[in-house]
C-alpha cells in the first residue's frame, strides 16, 4: 500500500532521567482517570509507565535505568498482534494504514482477554468509573472521550492528534503529514528529548534514521545500541530503545544462562 505507515518510537534510555513528564503529559492529554490513592499500581491506569531498573550490583558498580513503556503497537511477525487477534468482539484493531493498535471503548465488553494476551502489561482495565476532582473536568481534553467503567484502555499514540493533523492536511489538499505535524504528547513533553516519534517506514523521519528497522525481518534492527522489549516472542513491537549499557539491553528480554551474553547486533 502506497500510504502504508508504521508509526513508532525510539526512546533513548541514555537520555531518560526518569522524571515522569511523559507519564503526566500522557494522562493529561488522554483524560486518563486516576484514583484518590494511587499506591496500588496493579489497578491504576498508566498508558505510559516508567519502570526503574537496577543492575543489582553493589557500589561502586551499582547502576540504574528508567524505561518508559507505552503500548508497543505490536504487528507481530505473522501480522496478528497478541491482543488484536484474541478480542472476541473486534473491539481492538490493527491499522494497516498507520500501524497503530486502536481500542474501541464503546465496543469493548470488558472480557480482558487482550490484557491477558499482552506481555507488556500495556493494557488497563477501568475497575471504577472515572471521577475527577471538582472543576478538573473543565481541563479535560475535548478531543478524547473518557472511558467508562468496565472497559479496557491503552496508549493510542495520541491518535486524536493524527486525526486532527489529517483533517488539516485534507483541507490543504494534502495526503501526507510532515513529521512535526503529528507528534505524541509524551514525545513533546520529554525535557531530555529522549523520545522520538515518527513513521518507521519513512526514510526522512528521525525514527527511521535512528534505528533503520529491517522491514523484511520483522522490523529488527542492527543498530548496536538498539533493542526492543521481549523481541524473542515475535511480537514485533514498534517501540525501540537505545542504550549504551549492555545490562540494560539484556534486561529487555529473557535469555537462557548458556546463551552468549553479547547477542548479535547488541554488543557495544
Amino acid at each position, binding site marked *: 500500500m502506497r500510504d502504508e505507515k508504521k508509526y513508532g518510537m525510539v526512546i533513548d534510555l541514555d537520555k531518560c532521567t526518569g522524571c515522569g513528564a511523559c507519564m503526566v503529559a500522557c494522562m493529561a492529554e488522554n483524560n486518563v482517570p486516576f484514583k484518590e490513592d494511587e499506591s*496500588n499500581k*496493579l489497578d491504576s491506569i498508566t498508558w505510559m509507565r516508567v519502570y526503574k531498573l537496577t543492575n543489582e550490583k553493589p557500589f561502586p558498580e551499582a547502576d540504574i535505568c528508567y524505561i518508559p513503556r507505552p503500548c508497543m503497537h505490536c504487528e507481530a511477525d505473522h501480522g496478528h498482534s497478541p491482543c488484536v*487477534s484474541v478480542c*472476541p468482539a473486534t473491539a481492538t484493531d490493527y491499522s494497516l494504514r498507520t500501524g497503530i493498535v486502536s481500542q474501541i471503548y464503546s465496543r469493548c465488553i470488558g472480557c*480482558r482477554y487482550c490484557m491477558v*494476551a499482552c506481555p507488556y502489561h500495556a493494557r488497563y482495565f477501568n475497575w471504577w468509573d472515572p471521577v475527577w476532582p471538582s472543576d478538573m473536568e473543565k481541563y479535560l481534553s475535548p478531543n478524547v472521550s473518557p472511558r467508562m467503567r*468496565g472497559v479496557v484502555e491503552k496508549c493510542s499514540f495520541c491518535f486524536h492528534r493524527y486525526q486532527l493533523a489529517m483533517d488539516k492536511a485534507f483541507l490543504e489538499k494534502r495526503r501526507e503529514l510532515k513529521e512535526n505535524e503529528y507528534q505524541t504528547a509524551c514525545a513533546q513533553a520529554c525535557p531530555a528529548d529522549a523520545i522520538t516519534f515518527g513513521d518507521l517506514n519513512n526514510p526522512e523521519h528521525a525514527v527511521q534514521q535512528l534505528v533503520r528497522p529491517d522491514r523484511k525481518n520483522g522490523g529488527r534492527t542492527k543498530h548496536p545500541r538498539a533493542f526492543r522489549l521481549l523481541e*524473542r516472542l515475535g511480537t514485533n513491537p514498534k517501540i525501540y530503545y537505545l542504550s549504551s549499557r549492555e545490562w540494560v539491553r539484556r534486561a*529487555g528480554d*529473557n535469555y537462557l544462562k548458556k546463551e552468549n551474553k553479547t547477542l548479535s547486533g547488541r554488543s557495544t
Partner: protein
Amino acid sequence: MDNALIPKEVKRCPFSQFIILLGPVVGVLLLGVFAMSLVWLKGLNQTNMNDAYGFAAWIWADLTVIALGGGAFFTGFLRYIIGKDELKNIINYAVLIGVICYSSALLILGIDIGQPLRGWFIFWHANVHSMLTEVAFCLTVYLGVLIIEFVPLIMENRQIDRVPFFHHLGHRMHEIMAVFAATGAYLSFFHQGSLGGVAGVLFGRPFAFREGVFIWPWTFFLFTWSAAAVGPCFTMLITRITEKITQKKLVKENVIQLLAKISGWMLTTYIIAKIIDTWYWAAVTAPSKGFTLMDFYSNNPLYGIWILVVEIVIFGVVPAAILIIEKGRRHPILFITAVVLAVLGVCLNRWVMVLQVMAVPVLPFEGWPMYFPSWQEIATTMIPVTYGIVFISLAYRYLPIFPQEQELNPMGQMGPGEQEKPSILSDRKLRSAET
C-alpha cells in the same frame, strides 16, 4: 404434599425434610446471588482481580465446570454414536450435570465481563480469529442442545406426561435424540478445544503458548481429551455421592464399570499426550523464548515444581492406572479415589492454565504478582455448586433420572435405613392402596 409429582414406584423423603435439607444450600446460593448483584451493580472492583490478573477465579471456574460437564457430550457420544447401549442408564444424569455445568459457565461469563449488557457484541461483532468467540458460540449453541436433550426427561414427570401433547413431544424427541447427541459431541469437541486454545494461542505468554496444527495449539486437543476423560469421572463421582445421600443403588455396576474403563483409557492416553506436550514445551518451546522450565516454577511463594508433579503423577498417572486395571476400578475405595483424583486433576490443570499463566512474569524486570479472590468472587463461584445441588435435588425428586432405580430398589424391599424409618410417602401410598 408433592406426592403427585414424584415418579411412580420410587421412594422419596418427606417434602418437609426435603426443604429443610435444602435450606442451608439455598442460603449459600442466595449469598452468591447477593454477591453477583453487587458485582453487576458496582462493577468488577468488587473482586480482587487487577491488571496483572485479568483472568482469575471465575475463568478458572468457567473452564473447570465445562470440563467436568464434559461427561454429557462424551457419554452421549458413546451411547448414541458408538452404540454403548448400557450407558442409557446414566446418560440422563450426565445430561443433567451437563446442563448445570454449562448454564453455570454462561452465568459466570455474564458476571465476569466488565460490560455485561454488551455481551451480545461477541455475536454481533464476532472476531473469527479469537478463541473466545468460538467458545461463546459453541457454548451457547451446545447449552441449547443440552436443554433439548434434557426436555424429554422433564416431559416424563408424572403430571406433565399425562398431557398428551407433552407425552408425544417427549416420545418424538427421544427418537431423534441421536441427532442432537451427535451435534452436541461435534460442538463439544470444538468448544472444549477452544477453551484450551484460549491459553495456547497466547504467544506473548511463554508459559501458556504451545505450537500445534494449523490454527490449533496442542492445548486445544489436550483440553478436549481431558474433558472427555474426566467428564465421565465427574458423572460417576456425582452418581456415587447421590447414591450415598439417598442410600440407594441407582445405577447398575456394569454401567459404572464400562464408563470407568473407557474413562481410564481416555485418561491414560491423555496423560501420555500431556507428558509429551510438557516435555516438548520444556525442552523446545519455552527455551526458544528465553525461558527454562524452572523459570516458571521458582522465585515465588506458591507455584513450585510440585504443582506439575501433582498434576501429572498424582492426579493423572495414578487414577489412570487404577481405572484401567479391572481390580482397581472394581475396588470401591480405589475407584472413588481414582475418580476424585481425576476430577482434582482437571481442576488443577485449569487453574494452572489460567492463574499460573497470569502469575508468571514475562518482562524480565517484573515479579510474580499473587492473587487471592475476594469474598464476592468466592460466593459467586459457589453458585454453580449450590445451584447444582438444588437442580439435582429437584430433578431427582420429580423426574425419572435413573431408569434402573425401580429395579434396583423395589418398593417392597426397603434399604437398611428405610426399614427403620418408613417415609411419609410410602405410608401414604400404603393408605391409598388400602382404600
